[in-house]
């Protein structure tokens, strides 16, 4: 009832936002200066031939026509052919998507687990070293530029002490056998995931610690303590459970930042993912590729925002019951 209305409202908003994003996506790449044909130059190509190339790429139709074709295609997930490789953009993105998901998934998971545990620990022991450490790492998470941390890790553990590989997802050619392959991939995943985890964990730790501190002051906790329940049980069963909803919501809200932030990480570690694809496509004025990648990233952002809203709606009793209405 009210909840259904809430969901519907959110879906409608999402659709509107999607429309704006699509249009923006289209315009910005068409209007942006940058000649995709330019990179196909060779000293001996005559002007007639260059015109031919422009025609073959469909760059000669009026903007309006291009727009409608574009909307139609995008809704079908048809991204066209990359200007550079002439391969379907969809294929190229699909090749890279698992890499991005692997990196982001691993680091998000690890940073959440690590961060939350740190936060709980710190909240339980106020004024301790653990708490200071947690607050400190939270502080660093906000201050250290991600790319700098990554550069440092690279410098230290790939150049100075060549413990980890400098780039890529795996060795070439990849080792055969399940376990050697697994080890090799983990070896390559280590530095990029580590850098993202460190930064992410800091934020989670700080948030969890603050939320837990607040929760632990609540009346029902005092009641539980008075009742003589074991401290650990109080901690995990009661206090933590109570802050679970906002944590879940926060998880979904943090996704867009993570998705977007992949660009820098993938760039530094030469991780063949969607973020890096977007970056190089933008620089090359490779419209179809850049549009496809951007569309996917924006879509992922939109969906995670939507899910966050839904999760919030499920969790917040005010919305379920339909009270107020912001």
């Amino acid at each position: 009832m009210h909840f259904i209305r809430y969901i519907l409202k959110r879906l409608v908003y999402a659709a509107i936002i999607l429309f704006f994003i699509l249009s923006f996506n289209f315009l910005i790449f068409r209007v942006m200066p940058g000649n995709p044909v330019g990179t196909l130059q060779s000293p001996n190509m005559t002007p007639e031939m260059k015109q031919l190339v422009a025609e073959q790429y469909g760059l000669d139709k009026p903007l309006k026509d291009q727009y409608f074709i574009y909307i139609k295609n995008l809704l079908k997930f048809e991204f066209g052919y990359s200007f550079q490789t002439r391969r379907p953009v969809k294929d190229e993105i699909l090749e890279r998507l698992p890499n991005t998901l692997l990196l982001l998934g691993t680091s998000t998971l690890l940073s959440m687990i690590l961060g939350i545990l740190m936060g709980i620990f710190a909240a339980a022991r106020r004024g301790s070293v653990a708490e200071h450490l947690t607050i400190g790492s939270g502080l660093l998470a906000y201050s250290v530029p991600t790319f700098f941390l990554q550069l440092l890790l690279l410098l230290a553990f790939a150049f100075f002490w060549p413990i980890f590989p400098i780039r890529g997802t795996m060795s070439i050619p990849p080792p055969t056998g399940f376990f050697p392959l697994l080890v090799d991939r983990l070896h390559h995943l280590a530095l990029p995931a580590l850098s993202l985890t460190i930064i992410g964990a800091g934020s989670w730790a700080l948030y969890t610690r603050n939320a837990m501190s607040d929760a632990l002051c609540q009346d029902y906790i005092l009641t539980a303590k008075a009742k003589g329940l074991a401290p650990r049980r109080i901690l995990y069963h009661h206090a933590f459970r109570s802050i679970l909803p906002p944590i879940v919501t926060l998880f979904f809200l943090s996704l867009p930042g993570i998705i977007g932030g992949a660009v820098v990480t993938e760039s530094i570690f030469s991780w063949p993912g969607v973020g890096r694809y977007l970056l190089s496509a933008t620089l090359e004025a490779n419209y179809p590729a850049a549009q496809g990648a951007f569309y996917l990233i924006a879509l992922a952002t939109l969906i995670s925002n939507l899910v966050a809203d839904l999760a919030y709606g499920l969790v917040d009793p005010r919305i379920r019951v339909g009270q107020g209405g912001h």
Partner: protein
Amino acid sequence: MTFRSFAKQYRQSRPGMVGLGILLFFVVIAIFAPLLTSYDPLKDMNLANRMAMPAWFRIFPKYRDALQGTAFHITADEWDVKTIEGEIETAFSEQEGDDYLQLNFPEGAGKVLLTHTFGYPSDTATVFEIGLIYGISQLDSGNAALSFSIVDPNGKTYSPWKSQNHRSTMEVRKFSIDSRDMRVKTALGLGPFGDAAKTVFTSSGEYSLNILMEKTPESGPVTIDLGKMTFVVPGEVHGVLGVDHLGCDLWSQLAYGTRFALLIGLSAAFIAVVVGTTIGIISGYVGGFIDEILMRLADIMLSVPLLPILIILAAFFGKSIWNTVILIAVFAWMGTARMVRSQTLSLREQTFVEAARAAGASQTYIMWHHIMPNVLPLVFASLVLLIPSAILFESTLSFLGFGDPSTPTWGNMLQNAQNFGAFTRLAWWWILPPGLAITLLAMAFVLIGNTLNEILDPRHQER
């Protein structure tokens, strides 16, 4: 609360004071950058060898003998002139403010040797750059030629350069005898990858620079004007933080970069907050349709992944500091707007506002005179907390290559380090300082902002 009670509360917060201290440190550097540095961050090149280390590295035993730069001039009167053949007259002339040694050769054969000895303090060199300025006037027939050589302490002669056979006059020109030049390497009998400087300078001691001037017998009188000679062996160490790939002083870049970091951070955050506050107040107070539109707009802008958008827009709008500032601001106002809006919503119901409405005050008046002053404290804290994000974003954009390369920002320093081989060289003195500076400055603002939040947030006050 009064400013005094605010200051008192602030002083009591340790993190707040630490943050303030760090900020002050950077502000001082920013203001006094010209006094603290001796070089132009981007224009003064070749101060030392590519990626030379900081000078104070020499404390460490490993680098105690690191090559220090040698540089000197040889002016017209510092040459030791020895006539070998013919009757040559020397004189001093002046052209356009510079002094020249003039050697007048009469008809017939002529040969003269100019020598200058100097003490060279190291037992090696990586590069030598010698500037030879001369001109030939009054030459109608026959040939004249110069050749340059270096004699090491053991008496071995190296001849890295010979002039062409002059058959006519030549205006005064500067010739560069650079150890990296292929022709110099060839003249010394080295292959394309040989090290000419290392070959010539093998031990410390007395070296002499010689210029031999020759004139063929059948030629008429000739006059050769010799200008100031420059001799530079750039060192392996320089300055507070060493140099980059072009030999520009890194400490200068860091110091002037402070100005940009502060400027960009403050401007972007300021603009974002002004926009956000305005929208927040209007949205919260006026409500209704306008509120819906503005908040939907905020939603849309929150839904776009920030970095990809910034990359695309930076590519579109071009790279200048102000473009970056505006771009960042445009995507940062939403948080402030939401916060101010919820504040405005609760303020709207307060009695003093109702009273003003009853008295017939216009919406604009109320928003400006009643709402705004009351949201300001919180806005201020939010401003401070936005600054680190702005600084971080700008440095990330610069690092990815979308910054303005003519400005010595910290992000550009890191980008150059990556592009020009600092990692291969393990030149951590190039990589660490700018990154640490970004971190510290951002951290300072976070500490200050958190402290402000604690003190000024009415919710916090209720605790």
